[in-house]
């Protein structure tokens, strides 16, 4: 093409000299596909590329057809590029939304080896064999081959490449915000509404996805508002709004989600436009806004026309062309054909003409009249009325078109074909209001048969639609709507305001009723001829839509899913209505009867990083530490997460393995003394007149007669009779108890108790307070425990007579006030020492010092598990799994027969609860004393039976017990209680089989003779 310019020259001649919103004094260097170009501050990547006469910017999803820039905004389906390098790389960004900055690095996508020569383009040649849904009809034989077919398909599909380096260096933040009125969209209507609402003193947030407020006015010439050029009015409005303390202006911010109860999500691109991003600033910020009222002023999207070859680079939307000329000072072509079914495109024709391009208008209507048409004629622009472009041709950019006269309904060609050369087609198929947010919020839509679009009807949330998104395309009307909505919204939030007078608008009148022309005839038979595209990104053609209808995929949802139309990253902003109309046509139905799909979050694709925000890394989930944590760390403890708690797991000495360390700790606890940090156990302070009665109803056993200062073990059931939690509860006073729960169960148990108190037994006078973190707890266990307490300076008599098992005393240790419970989870002489949490570390170090001569050994949760298993004590959540009753555990002794009721009592009376073949708790001794059966292993009677095998149940706990000198295990086995003495087998994952004898689950000191030391 003769007028092609040297792309690297600083002043490509495609720059028009019109006044534009770029700073010609600020040239900016950037790179696209390895070649460096120059643009200006204020350019988007798209405008800068067009300024350099680069039209071919991408390849389509399926056919890999060359694609250019269609639009100038977020609806762009074609110009998707990969921005940045290394860890900063980001695929699928729309060139039309990227503000350029020095050093910007961009690449095209979905092509190999290069954009100009893409082997994938073969698909386009074979396109005829790949109609919509072809993959459902083939690749089925042989069945085994699908994975190979799929591999190829997967690599052909997918648009851009994700970053090679996965560690996103950027920071994302989130914030909550509240306002009286959120205005979504900062065009003329949005600005006017925000100003109106703000007058009342209401708190207003105004968000717009572009870097500048002003909406489509930014791309218009020859419009004046309030007696001044539109953009002068815009900047005046902005100055006034910015001065108001009750207004928050959010440019570069997309309102992408509109959820129940006026909860909206906004994505603010804080530093994306900067060449270097300050580390302390978020790249993007997610706003979670709760608005009392919402005003939607999102504008509208222009529709393409569906004619053969309409996807060639150089085929652009008319409004976009106007924007490039007026906003960016770029004239995207020199020989332009404007094709339209409405008046609006005439503005583009005039602007093209004024920018020095040759222009021909192809108007599908043969009766178009009005000031714009007159203006075009007066300018001497050639106007072909009742004509259409029936096909466009070119290699990687449109070069020529076939134009033909068409009948009134634009269904048939009615005359001779004209041939014209061109380098730009500027098309306009009418406007579709952006009803996305309204629809996300469950607002209803209605078809406007005159303006040929869906427009909002009933709203579901407290909101208003104004301006173009309400199909009020006329500026003056839009401003009046804005004032009305602003006033009403303010009033609805109890802010009174006097309606402002709408500023006068001076702009050529135009007819907003386009001609219905959904599919332009191409002179060939159905399905024949060059492809006419409906969905550019997903390569869905008009004949694909007809095919879907023919095959019975006739609901809009079926159409979308079968042809994938509207499923691209542009979410069908330019294609949905055309597809719908062509489907309606194929079904001989009216558009409203065929219906539209409901829009869902997000309005435009929204960064996952921003939605995750800072709730990642060490802020992903709170980690709770005990007051002794510092000591554990200093002494080389290994930790395990128990719920949110970090607990000392074991304390390896030197190069001890976990097993060596645990064996040492377990032995010490039975030969000398062990010290365990038990601070994480749940603790609940229970007070009130009815505290004992409450415990009676909560636990399976009886509590009324428990003496003051005495402790009792309790089992808590859900009302379905299944074990939920256990622990020791102590009576501190007549109406005062101290309950302990499992570490993991603490929060749940407190909630559980509150629920019963508040919802079932409000008559009981009981008060619950969590004191889990009020007390630090060190459990001293082992034969030397008493001696150590003596040396530590206990101030009361520890003799079993004075301080018997299952009792509690308050006293001092080395002067520290303490509550000491004589309870034991090891079967050894054991003291649970509670001190105010602030003294936890002091108590621990003090006991370690005092215990040194007596062989005190800190032990962790793993040793604790072994010690309790040696005694056959259960751990809720390990032996139990929500399907286990007290009887299953062999704990009938703890279930009161006397009490008329307790939580779970009735459920336990169901006949199946007494079935003999329920899984029951047993002990296991492996035939190989040195072998520890893996936890989770399943028992069978006959290891040689065929699959699926008859299983008895699973090993729940299994350890090597240094005190028994052999391995021990606990298991839940069907009919286990009656199987004592039987031998069972455990098929291992490696094919070997282990053998074990079923025994009583108490392996050590069955008579409990060690409890007093």
């Amino acid at each position, binding site marked *: 093409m003769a007028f092609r310019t040297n792309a690297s020259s600083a002043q490509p001649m495609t720059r028009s000299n019109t006044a534009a919103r770029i700073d010609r004094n600020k040239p900016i260097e950037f790179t696209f596909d390895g070649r460096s170009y120059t643009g200006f501050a204020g350019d988007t990547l798209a405008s800068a590329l067009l300024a350099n006469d680069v039209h071919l910017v991408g390849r389509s999803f399926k056919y890999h057809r060359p694609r250019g820039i269609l639009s100038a905004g977020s609806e762009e389906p074609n110009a998707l590029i990969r921005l940045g390098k290394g860890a900063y790389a980001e695929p699928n960004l729309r060139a039309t939304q990227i503000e350029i900055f020095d050093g910007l690095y961009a690449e095209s996508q979905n092509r190999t080896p290069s954009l100009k020569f893409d082997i994938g383009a073969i698909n386009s040649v074979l396109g005829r064999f790949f109609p919509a849904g072809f993959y459902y009809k083939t690749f089925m034989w042989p069945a085994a081959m699908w*994975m190979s077919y799929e591999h190829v398909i997967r690599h052909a599909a997918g648009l851009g490449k994700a970053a090679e380096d*996965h560690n996103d260096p*950027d920071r994302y933040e989130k914030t909550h915000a509240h306002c009286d009125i959120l205005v979504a969209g900062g065009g003329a209507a949005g600005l006017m509404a925000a100003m109106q609402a703000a007058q009342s003193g209401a708190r207003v947030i105004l968000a717009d996805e572009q870097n500048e407020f002003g909406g489509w006015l930014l791309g218009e010439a020859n419009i004046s508002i309030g007696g001044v050029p539109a953009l002068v009015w815009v900047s005046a409005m902005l100055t006034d709004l910015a001065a108001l303390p009750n207004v928050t202006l959010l440019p570069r911010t997309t309102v992408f989600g509109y959820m129940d109860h006026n*909860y909206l999500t906004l994505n603010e691109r804080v530093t994306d436009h900067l060449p270097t991003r300050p580390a302390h600033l978020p790249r993007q910020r997610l706003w979670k806004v709760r608005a009392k009222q919402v005003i939607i002023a999102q504008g509208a999207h222009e529709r393409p026309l569906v004619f053969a070859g309409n996807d060639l680079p150089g085929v652009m939307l008319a409004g976009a062309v106007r924007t490039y000329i007026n906003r960016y000072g770029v004239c995207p072509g020199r020989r332009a054909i404007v094709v339209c079914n409405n008046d609006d495109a005439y503005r583009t024709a005039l602007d093209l003409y004024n920018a020095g391009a040759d222009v021909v208008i192809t108007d599908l209507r043969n009766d178009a009249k009005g000031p714009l048409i007159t203006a075009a004629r007066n300018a001497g622009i050639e106007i072909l009325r009742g004509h259409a472009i029936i096909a466009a041709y070119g290699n990687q950019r449109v070069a020529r078109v076939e134009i033909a006269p068409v009948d009134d309904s634009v269904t048939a060609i009615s005359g001779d074909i004209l041939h014209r050369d061109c380098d730009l087609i500027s098309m306009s198929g009418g406007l579709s209001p952006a009803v996305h947010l309204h629809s996300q919020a469950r607002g209803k839509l209605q078809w406007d048969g005159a303006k040929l679009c869906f427009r909002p009807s009933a709203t579901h949330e407290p909101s208003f639609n104004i301006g173009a998104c309400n199909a009020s395309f006329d500026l003056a009307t839009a401003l009046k709507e804005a004032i009305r909505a602003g006033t009403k919204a303010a009033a609805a939030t109890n802010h009174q305001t006097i309606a402002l007078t709408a500023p006068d608008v001076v702009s050529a009148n135009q007819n907003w009723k386009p001609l219905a022309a959904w599919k332009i005839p191409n002179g060939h038979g159905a399905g024949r001829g060059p492809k006419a595209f409906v969905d550019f990104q997903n390569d869905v053609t008009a004949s694909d839509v007809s095919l879907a209808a023919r*095959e019975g995929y006739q609901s809009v949802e079926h159409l979308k899913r079968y042809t994938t139309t509207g499923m691209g990253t542009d979410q069908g902003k330019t294609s949905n209505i055309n597809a719908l109309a062509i489907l309606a046509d194929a079904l001989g139905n009216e558009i409203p009867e065929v219906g539209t799909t409901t829009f869902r979050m997000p309005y435009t694709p929204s960064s996952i990083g921003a939605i*995750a925000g800072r709730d990642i890394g060490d802020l992903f989930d709170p980690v709770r530490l005990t007051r002794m944590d510092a000591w554990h760390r200093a002494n080389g403890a290994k930790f395990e997460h128990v719920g949110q708690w970090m607990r000392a797991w074991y304390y390896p000495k030197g190069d001890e393995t976990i097993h060596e360390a645990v064996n040492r700790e377990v032995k010490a606890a039975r030969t000398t003394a062990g010290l365990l940090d038990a601070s994480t156990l749940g603790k609940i302070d229970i007070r009130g007149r009815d505290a004992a009665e409450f415990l009676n109803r909560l636990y399976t056993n009886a509590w009324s007669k428990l003496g003051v200062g005495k402790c009792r073990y309790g089992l808590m059931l859900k009302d379905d009779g299944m074990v939920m939690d256990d622990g020791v509860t102590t009576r501190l006073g007549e109406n005062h108890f101290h309950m302990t729960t499992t570490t993991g169960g603490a929060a749940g148990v407190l909630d559980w108790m509150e629920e019963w108190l508040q919802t079932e037994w409000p008559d009981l006078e009981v008060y619950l307070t969590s004191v889990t973190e009020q007390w630090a707890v060190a459990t001293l266990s082992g034969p030397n425990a008493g001696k150590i307490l003596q040396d530590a300076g206990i101030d009361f008599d520890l003799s079993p007579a004075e301080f018997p098992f299952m009792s509690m005393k308050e006293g001092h240790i080395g002067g520290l006030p303490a509550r000491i419970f004589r309870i034991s989870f090891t079967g050894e002489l054991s003291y649970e020492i509670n001190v105010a949490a602030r003294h936890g570390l002091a108590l621990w170090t003090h006991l370690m010092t005092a215990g040194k001569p007596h062989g005190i050994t800190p032990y962790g949760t793993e040793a604790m598990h072994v010690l309790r298993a040696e005694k056959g004590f259960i751990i809720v959540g390990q032996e139990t799994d929500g399907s286990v009753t007290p009887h299953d555990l062999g704990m009938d002794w703890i279930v009161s027969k006397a009490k008329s009721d307790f939580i779970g009592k009735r459920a336990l009376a169901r*006949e199946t609860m007494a079935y003999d073949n329920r899984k029951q708790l047993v002990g296991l001794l492996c035939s190989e004393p040195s072998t520890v059966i893996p936890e989770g292993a399943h028992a069978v009677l006959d290891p040689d039976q065929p699959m699926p095998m008859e299983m008895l149940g699973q090993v729940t706990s299994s350890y090597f017990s240094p005190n028994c000198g052999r391995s021990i295990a606990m298991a839940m086995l069907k009919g286990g209680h009656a199987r004592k003495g039987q031998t069972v087998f455990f098929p291992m994952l490696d094919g070997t089989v282990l053998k074990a004898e079923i025994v009583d689950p108490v392996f050590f000191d069955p008579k409990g003779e060690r409890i007093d030391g």
Partner: protein
Amino acid sequence: MAQNQPDRGQRGLPGGTPRYSAFALAKKAMNYHQDWQRAWRDPAPKAEYDAVIIGGGGHGLATAYYLAAVHGMTNIAVIEKGWIGGGNTGRNTTIIRSNYLWDESAAIYEHSMKLWEGMSQDLNFNVMFSQRGVLTIAHSEHELREMSRRVHAIRLNGIDSEILGPAEIKKFVPTINIDQSIRYPVMGGFLQRRGGTARHDAVAWGYARAADDLGVDIIQKCEVTGLRRQGRKIVGVETSQGFIKTKKVGCVVAGHSSVVAAMAGIRLPIASRPLQALVSEPIKPILDTVIMSNAVHMYISQSDKGEMVLGAGVDKYNSYAQRGSFPVPEHMLAAAVELFPVLSRLRMLRHWGGIVDTCPDASPIISKTDIEGLYFDCGWGTGGFKATPGSGHVFADLIANDRPNKIAAPYTLDRFRTGLLIDEHGAAGVAH
């Protein structure tokens, strides 16, 4: 696996519907695809059917197909108030696996898995069943213990399952983060290689086309307004297209089970909850398997189109609105970024919600009712899609023979009276 399967229904399209094939595709291309015929008819309802299936989702269409193909009941109808596959069939994350803990669950999901393995050929419709493996991650000692229990049980049930360590996981899933210092480190996982995904819409369309070929009437935009009874017997269905007489009604209306049950005065132990899912923009392949993590309520795979498909846990309150609350995807995406940092710079493209019917024991109901001729298949919670063929297969058997077969037997409504539950979440709450 396609061969020697439990009665899989007849192969091909005995009803005479032209077969799909590469050859047919090429042949039709010659005529610019003008003479493809409808995948299924659009009939008006007859006055009477031998059985009526309420609900044109995957389960309902599968039930109809197997009633016709296996039990020879061809005078039946599927009635759907909207468009087929428009409910949870088209709203799930398409995960398919059979590695369940309890024997009863393993039995039905493995039955289903075997049917998946021959489905595209059975239906002559490519449902793109992709056995790319399902890997469930364990993040703590407790989860490792549960994993071991699960894998031992699964193996003894004759189902494939293997345990992977962090290094093996990294090898299998290069994009995953196995840094052991993160809050929920990848400590291990168990893999079912036969698990994977399928094209959810295709399952509904494939069953519809195959059932239609056998004479089944598929009636869309037909809403059930009532169930007509005579005493304790069902005699027909009131619909928006008039009364339809029938002696057998199978209800397979995930997301509306309680509503339809109420029409017959039946109570169900079901709560309907929103389940949210989302996809990212399509990118070139970075994940060739399915990853599930229960500790952080997140599962993820990459569709053939290139979209990252992510699912979360169930929302906390009852709803029929097919939308959930924002904190759920917020937490889920944070968890996803922890495990797959690459996601941070990708963008959410679509987000949606389905309505799942959840039972107290997280297991389904496949059952007769105390009304003769009225059957329910519901309560699949988040596990419905993977069960589609198995559920349809055993439900068809229940309707045809008026008694549950061995696989369906444990799933009667009666278990809520006896208390013999199949407590899948009690048993470590693996997200389905």
